[in-house]
């Protein structure tokens, strides 16, 4: 996926001796000094360097003092009184990002010279930088601000007029550029060129007047453009969606995954007081590296859509009225009890978590329902992260035996019309009308139960509507199209009385069959691990923040997206 992965050594087992701030360590040969420092629990500040982009060495913030081993005439190392090799320090500082470690190399990350270099770079970067931190969206996560604390002076010796550059430049549909804030690190240019192969951005003019721009009339609108906002170490590139909305230090960060397609990019949800303000990619080499698509990132506004279902609804005399959860569950169970199991069909959704699907599996098993399937959703795949499978957990539904990939579902419309199916339980907010079953058919059903996040044509026909929680509002796991099992964690509470699906299903199951042994997501997970062979040996903790790759069966062998 990435042309570069500088944070991974060519051979992690080929180690050399390196002295970092006086301490001898073993580090992979050739690994660059910024990464070596990082692994040594030291930190070398940097702006232009990014492990997934080409190394250009333009910011000069990662200058460090480098030494090479002193050698005797016979090329053997000169040993000091402590028996350790002596180091000859070079007078000229080197850039950490472009220097790979070699045997016996000395590295100083905090010497007076190194600090002087950083002070110099900081002062230079700030002389023409506007002092608009109070209104800058980057404030709080700005590397310029961050490093100023350690390497800034607090006063400016610059008494000349600052350079004027374009402000509030409309780069594309989703991005605004402030050239006065830009420190010309070229991360955005390199991302667009190297990762996206979309050369829209570039620098015009020269020297101090160098200015980031898109060619006049060309828009920076590629499907992954917002990654440059993450990459920008300062507030030059900002997201139109997020800018001026919230100070980042107020945001609670929750680890989750994107459910906008079958890839399941690792994400961080930024929320405050029950509202999701942004989603950013969380680095996961097995899934999305450091990136995600703009669509998935911005697919958060449905959370407070006017179509959001807030309360259970029950249909009476042709109209839906709000009711209590107890009444709704009772009505739903009662409905399912009125018909024979073979007259029930269940739309298990590829949008549900494994835990939710598992409770559902128990329910249908105990009821003896065999008509279970999910609605396939296809999306527009690209050659990068977007998957053609629109279901984020279609693989999970398959693993749990709740999906035939839509094969069974395709005949349900006719079976409803012919009266073979009399009751339908729809999960995951699937809109069956959109999926090809006409509303006239759905109106024939004796029982139509709907659980979902947003109202749609199907929900409006339902006898019972059970409002459920969205991705950001629930904890659970999913399996992506490449067979990677990943976790999502609840960032905010569901609005109104909406509940997580697994709770809805637990209560429905209890009401229908009396089955009740699952009290938490972890309980559900334990049962899954015990019963589903592909999940054997796994625990909630073992899934970890980056997920685990499941044993690939033929149906899971979609190829590995991330080419090492």
């Amino acid at each position, binding site marked *: 996926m990435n042309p570069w992965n500088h944070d991974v050594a060519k051979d992690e087992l080929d180690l050399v001796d390196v002295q970092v701030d006086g301490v001898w360590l073993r580090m992979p040969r050739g690994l660059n000094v910024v990464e070596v420092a990082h692994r040594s629990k030291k930190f070398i500040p940097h702006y232009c360097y990014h492990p997934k982009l080409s190394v250009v060495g333009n910011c000069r913030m990662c200058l460090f003092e480098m030494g090479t081993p002193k050698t005797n005439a016979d090329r053997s190392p000169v040993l000091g009184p402590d028996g350790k090799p002596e180091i000859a320090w070079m007078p000229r500082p080197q850039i950490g990002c472009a220097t790979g470690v070699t045997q016996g190399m000395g590295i100083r990350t905090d010497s007076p010279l190194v600090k002087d270099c950083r002070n110099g770079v900081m002062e230079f970067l700030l002389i023409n930088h506007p002092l608009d931190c109070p209104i800058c969206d980057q404030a709080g996560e700005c590397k310029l601000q961050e490093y100023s604390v350690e390497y800034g002076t607090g006063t400016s010796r610059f008494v000349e007029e600052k350079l004027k550059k374009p402000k509030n430049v409309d780069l594309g549909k989703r991005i605004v550029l402030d050239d006065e804030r830009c420190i010309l690190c070229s991360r955005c240019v390199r991302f667009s060129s190297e990762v996206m192969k979309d*050369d*829209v951005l570039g620098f015009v003019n020269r020297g101090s007047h160098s200015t980031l721009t898109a060619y006049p009339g060309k828009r920076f609108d590629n499907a992954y453009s917002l990654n440059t906002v993450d990459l920008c170490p300062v507030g030059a590139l900002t997201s139109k969606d997020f800018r001026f909305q919230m100070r980042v230090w107020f945001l609670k960060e929750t680890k989750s995954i994107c459910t906008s397609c079958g890839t399941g990019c690792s994400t961080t949800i930024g929320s405050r007081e029950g509202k999701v303000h942004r989603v950013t990619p969380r680095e996961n080499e097995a899934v999305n590296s450091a990136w995600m698509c703009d669509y998935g990132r911005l697919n958060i506004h449905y959370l407070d859509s006017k179509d959001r279902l807030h309360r259970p609804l029950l249909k009476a005399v042709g109209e839906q009225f709000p009711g209590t959860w107890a009444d709704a569950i009772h009505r739903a169970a009662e409905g399912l009890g009125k018909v024979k199991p073979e007259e029930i069909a269940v739309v298990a959704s590829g949008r549900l978590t494994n835990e939710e699907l598992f409770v559902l599996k128990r329910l249908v098993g105990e009821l003896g329902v065999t008509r279970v399937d999910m609605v396939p959703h296809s999306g527009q795949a690209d050659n990068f992260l977007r998957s053609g499978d629109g279901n984020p957990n279609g693989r999970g539904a398959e693993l749990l035996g709740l999906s035939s990939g839509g094969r069974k579902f395709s005949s349900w419309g006719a079976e409803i019309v012919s009266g073979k199916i009399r009751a339908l339980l729809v999960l995951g907010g699937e809109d069956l009308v959109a999926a090809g079953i006409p509303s006239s058919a759905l109106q024939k059903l004796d029982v139509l139960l709907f659980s979902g996040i947003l109202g749609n044509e199907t929900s409006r026909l339902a006898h019972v509507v059970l409002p459920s929680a969205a991705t950001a509002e629930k904890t659970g796991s999913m399996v992506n199209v490449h067979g990677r099992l990943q976790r999502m964690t609840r960032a905010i509470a569901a609005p109104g009385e909406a509940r997580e699906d697994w709770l809805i299903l637990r209560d429905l199951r209890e009401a229908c069959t009396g089955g009740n042994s699952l009290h938490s997501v972890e309980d559900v997970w334990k049962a899954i691990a015990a019963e589903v062979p592909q999940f054997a040996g796994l625990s909630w903790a073992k899934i970890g923040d980056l997920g685990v790759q499941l044993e690939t069966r033929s149906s899971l062998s979609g190829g590995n997206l991330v080419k090492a």
Partner: protein
Amino acid sequence: MSTALEVGTENCAGPETGEITSALEKQATELIARYPVSARSAVMPLLHLWQETFGYIGPRGVEWIAKKLSLQEIQVLELVTFYPWFRQKPYGKFHFRVCRTLPCALGGSGKTFAKLQKLMNLKSDGHEGAMVSEDGRFSLEYSECLASCGTAPVILRNDEFHQGVDEKRATELVAGCK
């Protein structure tokens, strides 16, 4: 294969709207052939060719070159704005570049410049870059070292090089603009 213009025939004033002749296309093809490894190397030669033909490099030139070399327009614009020789606006029919670097400055290039500015009746708008006379006849700018420091001050009038250009010689050179 040289398609060089004779010295003294450089077109500085445009317009960029002229016809793209088959001769121009042929010259471009020949220039591109000089870079068998990477056509992108031909950007600067093509920028020179366009500027010499049309006087300056506007969007039409940028887009023509980008298309010829299968580049994005920004990759061409990046160069037009980096290299001071390339201009995005027309200059005067007679464009003067006066060397301002130390040896020429020691030799009096400041006086030469001031004289030319007066003769051409040019006013600085305070911005960097060339001043162009209202009638489009003259333009004037400072240039960095022209590499003839021993004969300071030196200037270029279009593509003609002149050395030892004191105020008197400057007056003659302006008078000689026919």
